[in-house]
């Protein structure tokens, strides 16, 4: 047996890779060779650890030392001190894990303490390009259990009883979906995986595919057995090159081991998988559009019913689940439906992965039991808002969701509570906003996105989102009227009621929820012609505070349009007519004598 006294795990997820973790891997390998300890220490490329804000991340076992913000030039010191001499390099450790003289275990750090990892169980622990490591941590044991000791209907029943709901957005019961597809009549059936993660700010599916691809393959094989299918497709966006590469490697390794293909594990069951690449259209995350795209058609939705469970890919019964949904399946099979159902709230079981982004200290991925409050996520796990700014709202569900204001911070998060608040779970993107975010601007941003991504098939979505966007732009420019608010609400209701697919039906949500909780900001834009957060440039003026101005003239030199004039001894003056509101003067003023408002 190969035996290494120490394992160096280096994150090669997209986040850490873009901050040069591949160079870190190379430096580790070189330095370790230099010291002649390559037979004692192994270096492994692994998936996302979740704390992306502090990447690149390196974890060294057996101490489980958590190094953050590692630079290639730090490697020499880590190897020399930690690996050769056994002295942890405290200066490079994740600051939260160092408490005076003692070093806390990762699991005691605030960011990880409240997390419970099911879908992300193997992310950051195994090398995703080595099937043996996945197998070692109980990989393919669930498939083995299903094929040797369970009937297809028992599998469906287990998933049903677990209470698992779709993690991609809608939150439909996964077990029911499996049941419908299993019972649908058809000689050929398909199992699909939706990896067309399109919500701005959401990246949990990418991390699962990159960090633990076999968990999705195994779950799809189990799904195939349960519903009576022997062919699956993973529909992944082409913008995820690392995910596609790891998944391709994983599929090849699974085929080599006979875990995909004919007569799997000698049981006679046959199942194979292929990857289909999407070209990055948001609408292709909608199930019927996704199916059309796999068929080679233009990615557009069609009316339902018939639902894909009855008539899906190539007109055959089709099961379609999201990546994160699949990532839960094997654990449910191994640990039982009751185990999974014991976590979470009454109607939302298990855990959910959230991608924390925006104005938050610990940007990254967290997996928490359903029913955790927004306050715990933002202020405990997320580490609060940078620079001591005030929390204004959290946006969940991306362009289909809405904002949750400060007064609802203590609501336990699950599917139904979020809908009651006018938002939705969506895929789990969570964007935190502080006092510097303008809610009209946020609504405009999301409408701009859905208007751009609308496929154009149905009129309410194609025309409606465009009209809503125009009104929002008008308000942001200070040309709005009070009647525009009614118009927005009216349009929103009609689009919701009449659009063909989920994209259009949910597109007005960002507007409706900001109107519900932050109407005063709309009114300020319309009546006072002011943007309280100082974001909408058309409503801003840069003004010199006379008492603070020392007449140094730095601002005038910075101004690209010569809008600032003045002379020694007299406060400078900004010509608001000429000013293009670039903000250069404000950032350069040494005396903080310029403000915007």
């Amino acid at each position, binding site marked *: *047996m*190969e*035996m*290494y*006294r*120490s*394992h160096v*795990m280096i994150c090669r997820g997209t986040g850490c890779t873009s901050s040069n973790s591949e160079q870190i891997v190379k430096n580790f390998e070189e330095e370790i060779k230099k010291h002649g300890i390559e037979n*004692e220490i192994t270096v492994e490329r692994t998936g996302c650890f979740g704390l992306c804000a502090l990447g690149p991340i390196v974890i060294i*076992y*057996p*101490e489980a030392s958590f190094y953050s913000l590692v630079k290639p030039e730090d490697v020499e010191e880590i190897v020399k001190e930690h690996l*050769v*001499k*056994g*002295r942890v390099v405290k200066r490079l450790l994740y600051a939260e894990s160092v408490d005076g003289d003692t070093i806390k275990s990762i699991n005691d750090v605030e960011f990880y303490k409240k997390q419970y990892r099911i879908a992300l169980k193997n992310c950051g*622990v*195994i090398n995703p390009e080595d099937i*043996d*490591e996945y*197998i*070692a*941590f*109980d*990989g*393919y*044991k669930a498939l*083995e259990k299903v094929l*040797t000791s369970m009937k297809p209907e028992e599998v469906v029943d287990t998933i049903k009883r677990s209470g698992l709901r779709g993690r991609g957005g809608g939150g439909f019961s996964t077990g029911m979906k499996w049941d419908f597809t299993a019972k649908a009549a058809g000689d050929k059936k398909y199992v699909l995986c939706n990896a067309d993660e399109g919500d701005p700010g959401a990246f949990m599916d990418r991390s699962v595919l990159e960090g633990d691809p076999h968990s999705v393959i195994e779950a799809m094989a189990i799904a195939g057995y349960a519903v009576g299918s022997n062919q699956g497709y993973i529909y992944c966006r082409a913008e995820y090159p690392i995910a596609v590469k790891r998944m391709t490697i994983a599929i090849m390794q699974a085929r080599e*081991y*006979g*875990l995909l*293909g004919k*007569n*799997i*594990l*000698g049981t006679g069951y046959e199942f194979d998988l292929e990857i289909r690449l999407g070209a990055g259209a948001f609408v292709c995350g909608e199930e019927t559009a996704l199916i059309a795209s796999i068929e080679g058609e233009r990615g557009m939705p069609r009316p339902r019913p018939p639902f894909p469970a009855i008539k899906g890919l190539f007109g055959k019964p089709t099961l379609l689940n999201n990546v994160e949904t699949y990532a839960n399946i094997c654990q449910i099979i191994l640990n039982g439906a009751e185990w999974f159902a014991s976590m979470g709230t009454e109607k939302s079981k298990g855990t959910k992965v959230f991608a924390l982004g925006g104005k938050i200290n610990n940007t990254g991925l967290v997996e928490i039991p359903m029913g955790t409050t927004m306050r715990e996520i933002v202020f405990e796990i997320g580490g609060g808002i940078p620079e001591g700014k005030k929390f204004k709202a959290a946006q969940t569900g991306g362009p289909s969701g809405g904002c949750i204001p400060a007064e609802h911070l203590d609501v336990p998060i699950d599917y139904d509570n979020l809908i009651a608040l006018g938002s939705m779970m969506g895929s789990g993107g969570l964007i935190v906003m502080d006092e510097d975010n303008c809610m009209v601007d946020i609504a405009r941003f999301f409408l701009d996105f859905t208007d751009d991504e609308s496929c154009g098939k149905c009129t309410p979505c194609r025309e409606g989102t465009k009209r809503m966007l125009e009104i929002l732009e008008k308000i942001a420019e200070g040309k709005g009227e009070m009647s525009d608010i009614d118009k927005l609400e009216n349009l929103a209701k009609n689009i919701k009621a009449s659009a063909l697919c989920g994209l259009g039906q949910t597109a007005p949500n960002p507007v409706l929820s900001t109107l519900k909780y932050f109407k005063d900001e709309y009114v300020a834009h319309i009546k006072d012609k002011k943007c309280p957060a100082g974001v909408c440039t058309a409503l801003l003026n840069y003004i010199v505070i006379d008492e603070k101005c020392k007449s140094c003239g730095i601002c005038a030199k910075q101004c690209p349009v010569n809008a600032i004039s003045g002379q020694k001894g007299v406060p400078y003056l900004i010509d608001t007519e000429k000013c293009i509101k670039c903000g250069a003067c404000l950032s350069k003023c040494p005396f903080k004598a310029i403000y915007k408002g």
Partner: protein
Amino acid sequence: MKSIQELEEIRKRTLDTINVRKDRSGTRVVVGMATCGIAAGARPVLLAVIDEVKNNNLADVVVAQTGCIGMCRLEPILEVYKPGEEKVTYVKVTASKAKRIMNEHVILGKVVEEYTIGASEQ
């Protein structure tokens, strides 16, 4: 094609090599590896420890290093932490002494008194 038994073998074999990434409750064998320890010959000791772990498939044993604990004259120092037992410190360890410590103390649970710090101080 792999059979279920073959899969189980891969599982066992790989788990032995990557088990170090899991929380374990087993024995910790710690070798002092500061400059003093290395100069006194800690590396052959460490390698001997790893060899014994390998040869005996001691999947639950963690091999770790530590820095200087201030008794440089007694290096190489090797410490054995068994769950629920007092730490045992061995001094002036060599590769062959390390082998005996691994076989008698770590595996069979019998402390090798003559190599311990207590014995050397008398």
